[in-house]
């Protein structure tokens, strides 16, 4: 059966709504009988039409970590929120900082998180993150005690409306050596010596992180990305079932 893009769009719309969870391309293809399964490009085109159509609607098409999802547009969230008596959950700074460190620096051990935060990380926080299925143990560091290494999951991406870790906000800039040198020159009395830490990339004597995100070096993202791919791969093997959406 040959279908026009409009029909395909309607099938995808109905499917995404009925699925109640993000659907990746493979799953979307699976709703078509084998003998009439459209190619991904054709489905992608139908999704594009659906996305456009949503411009004048109360919902939007969004691609998140585990696939495509229709969701309430942010501008209408206040009304929809009134459907539920409960207030949206709030997360403590300690939890968010821990989560963010895991997201940007994965795979990372608890000791390493504590090192950067300068304070101990409570077991409760790690447990909450794991229970929400935002974070999981992706391995162990081969040092005495074999501490667990944590990484983020697809559910984490889904929850924060991210397609991949690279969509995380860029970390604030840590200025390059030249910038620092220039600034040091501009500084008044004695030329302040600056030290360079082992990474040699990160200047030590710098003004507090600059707010300019555009200039931000992506060094943290760079380290995070290969790990993320690995994790996604591992997850695919470990957890072929679609991640749940937590309501």
């Amino acid at each position: 059966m040959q279908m026009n893009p409009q029909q395909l769009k309607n099938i995808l719309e109905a499917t995404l709504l009925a699925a109640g969870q993000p659907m990746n391309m493979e799953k979307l293809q699976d709703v078509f009988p084998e003998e009439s399964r459209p190619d991904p490009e054709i489905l992608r085109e139908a999704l594009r039409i659906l996305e456009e159509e949503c411009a004048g609607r109360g919902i939007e098409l969004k691609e998140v970590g585990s696939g495509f999802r229709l969701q309430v547009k942010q501008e209408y969230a206040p009304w929809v929120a009134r459907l539920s008596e409960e207030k949206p959950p709030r997360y403590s700074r300690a939890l968010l900082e821990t989560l963010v460190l895991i997201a940007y620096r994965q795979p990372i051990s608890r000791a390493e998180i504590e090192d950067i935060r300068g304070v101990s990380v409570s077991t409760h926080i790690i447990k909450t993150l794991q229970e929400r299925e935002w974070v999981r143990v992706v391995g162990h560091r081969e040092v005495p005690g074999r501490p667990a290494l944590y990484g983020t999951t697809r559910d984490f991406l889904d929850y924060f409306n991210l397609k991949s870790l690279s969509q995380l906000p860029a970390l604030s800039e840590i200025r390059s050596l030249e910038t620092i040198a220039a600034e040091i020159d501009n500084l008044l009395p004695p030329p302040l010596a600056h030290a360079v830490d082992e990474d040699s990339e990160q200047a030590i004597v710098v003004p507090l992180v600059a707010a300019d995100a555009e200039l931000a070096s992506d060094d943290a993202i760079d380290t995070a990305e290969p790990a993320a791919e690995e994790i996604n791969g591992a997850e695919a093997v470990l957890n072929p079932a679609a991640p749940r959406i937590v309501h």
Partner: protein
Amino acid sequence: MTQVVADIPVAERALPTLAMVLGNPITEMPKDLYIPPDALEIFLEAFEGPLDLLLYLIRRQNIEILDIPIAEITRQYMVYVEVMKGVRLELAAEYLVMAAMLAEIKSRMLLPRPKTEEGEEEDPRAELIRRLQEYERFKRAAEEVDALPRMERDTFPVGIERPLRSGPRPHPAVSLEELLLAFKDVLTRAEMFSNHHVQMEPLSVRERMSDILSAVSAEKFTAFAGLFKPEEGRMGVVVSFLAVLELIKESLLELIQTEAYGPIYVRVPSHADEPAAVEEYS
């Protein structure tokens, strides 16, 4: 911060002497504490540790991190730590470690800088600044991630009831091969029970036995001749006959002939008292 001792009455906390700093009693809140003492615990709890507190102190005075006046910052930090002690806030070890680090930096600032192997001078504040900077990046990232549109707050999942499946739920598929493999297994097992000889009659007879049994009843007589279908030919008649004989042998059927040379009837042996067809399953 880790914990607040929550059950301290406010009055107790408001004692004139808040803390002892360098042997001197502190009777007033530090000037930079613009919050009422009652809120102090909450205020201090809001800090995510010594780095966070230090960042607050630096930020509040608009100090460039390069220019951290270690002596002054250390002084202020110590005041906070003493205040924490004063309100019996359980002091996390991290705060004390930081206090020691600040004191060390302070003392090193007073001394000539040691040469490193590369011959460069090392700023005693370097490590602190690196940590502060690293921490602040992630602190800021956490704020940005917190601001990302997220489920349950900025967007909600949508759904629709799934249409009912058009057909009945599919049954498991079974292949004849599977069936025969099962048979092989059960026979292999049965061999271990030597008292059971699993011997098989021609299946056509077995099949016919079932057919006949379900066609007759205890309530009425069924004509013996009616069990045979001439159109099945000689084979069919023989199979039916064997099936009837087997059923009689197993007492599943009885033959009734009321008079010599009269018509023969069959029926299921009656046990009039018992209710018919009580299934053994519910």
